[in-house]
């Protein structure tokens, strides 16, 4: 089933007059992990923000389960965001330094009102356990957590609305390789268990290969190649994809 469908999406940043996202079209299907790979500045994070309307596109359309997200009210968009969540790259920048881990998650319940006041604390503890942390983390501040633990909080926050679809924007890029493996394991397990759909953004082909079913390659705002990981990695068509594969440090 087609969950998210993006058609001819375009975004120009006036200041530099660059097309950060240049007529991009693709679909994400229910239950798959779709990778988006490219180098810094290629437009992949802009694309993620456009898809969630955290940035407004210049033209094009975004359909989520057949609903046109660019033509719905703010109220409806807010409701839809329960289904569409995002995990950010930098777990240091994406958490409020003065907000305790438990509050980060409870705030989501407060905004979306999807869990009653009495149940919020129990639900929060349950979520902390889901991401491998547990009750002892309720009152911890981000400064008391390691990079991996912060990213687990970021994942718990995304899960708090019980979403169907999560955009993972370089969620492991700032982590040590040993912690990266732990977080990838968590994301793989959650995806399988909850039948989640991910749009997984990374600049690291190894990371893409370890979690994705399909992959799209982006360069200068355009999608230049896409296909199953198997085909793209074994038989790349575009010269840029070949360069990326040749540059990748593989075991």
């Amino acid at each position, binding site marked *: 089933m087609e969950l998210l469908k993006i058609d001819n999406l375009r975004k120009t940043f006036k200041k530099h007059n660059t097309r950060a996202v240049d007529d991009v079209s693709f679909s994400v299907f229910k239950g798959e*992990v779709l990778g988006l790979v490219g*180098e*810094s500045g290629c437009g992949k994070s802009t694309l993620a923000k456009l898809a969630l309307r955290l940035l407004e596109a210049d033209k094009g359309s975004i359909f989520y389960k057949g609903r046109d997200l660019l033509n719905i009210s703010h109220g409806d968009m807010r409701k839809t965001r329960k289904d569409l969540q995002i995990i950010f790259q930098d777990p240091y920048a994406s958490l409020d330094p003065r907000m305790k881990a438990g509050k980060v998650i409870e705030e989501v319940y407060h905004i979306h009102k999807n869990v009653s006041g009495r149940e919020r604390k129990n639900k929060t503890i349950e979520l902390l356990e889901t991401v491998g942390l547990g009750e002892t983390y309720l009152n911890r501040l981000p400064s008391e957590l*390691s*990079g*991996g*633990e912060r990213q687990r909080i970021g994942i718990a926050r995304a899960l708090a609305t019980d979403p169907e679809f999560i955009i993972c924007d370089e969620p492991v890029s700032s982590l*040590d*390789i*040993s*912690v*990266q*493996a*732990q977080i*990838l*394991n968590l994301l*793989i*397990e959650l*995806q*399988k268990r909850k039948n989640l759909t991910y749009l997984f953004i990374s*600049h*690291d*082909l*190894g*990371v893409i*290969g*370890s*979690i994705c*079913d399909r992959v799209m390659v982006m360069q200068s705002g355009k999608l230049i190649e896409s296909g199953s*990981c198997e085909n793209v*990695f074994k038989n790349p068509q575009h010269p840029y994809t070949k*360069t*990326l594969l*040749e*540059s*990748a*440090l*593989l*075991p």
Partner: protein
Amino acid sequence: MLLQIKNLKINYKSDNRMVEVVRGVDLDIDRGECVGLIGESGCGKTTAGLSVTKLIPERKGNISSGEILFASNDILKLNPEELRNIRGKKISYVFQEPFSSLNPVFTIYEQIRESLEEKDNPGRRIAEILKSVGLEKIIGRKNAYPHELSGGMQQRAMIGMAIVSRPDLLVLDEPTTALDVTVQRQILDLIMELKNKMNLAILFISHDLRIVFNIADKIAIMYAGKIIEFGPKEKIVSSPAHPYTIGLIDSIPSLEHRKKPFNAISGKAPLFSELPQGCKFYPRCRFRIDKCTEKEPELRDVSGGQASRCIRIEELKSNGTIKNR
């Protein structure tokens, strides 16, 4: 031997008390040899790298014991004047983020000129340096500032500044971590080229085994302030001899992985103020037994030039629990 680090111990201030973060490190680097120093953030690898020219700020930490022999001189016994003749000249550094290492208000030309010994007619030598680090584009552009360069070009400029004085040893601390994959590959190629051309010794510090597998001759794995495995690259790749190294290798993502869970290392690195008894890796180790907690294992030779601190490694290999790759 160009550089010999012997039983190096360094204390660092943390929450107003001193903790030992480098707890007895031995490491040798020969001319023309690249040694990779690997470990998770906070394991002491950067501190160890900085200590090679006594670059540890006094208010933050001190070297409490050990020797650092560079071309047979003990760095720790040199006076500031003698140290200046080595630091940045015989031993140069390149750090992770080129943009924060370069001075934004001076041109690339000015910054390279600053490291030149001979100040007369520097133009030719600067052009030579720029060419050797692949910055032909900048030659003649005397007013080019760091912000006009891409991250990769900035790192090339940093490497240029590091090799101006024709050093014997280059300490590279995560020099490619902030860069894109294609640029990373180019910078690694450049480092290899310079190493061969100049017969450089390199200490390459990184958290990423993949990088040192591509560039190092020998690899040292550091955990909680000590080297827990050391050996030639080929041996570390094909038959790692410490459970921590094995966990690091198992954590490397690959193109063929496809949603298969990683055999990741569980838990997290211990705080220096709360190190466990005995083997420091014990709480996270898949193969731990009670005996591991008795005393901290020594680094001992396990097979021709490969050393490990795991007391069980021979047993685990001979009974097939740990297989060669």
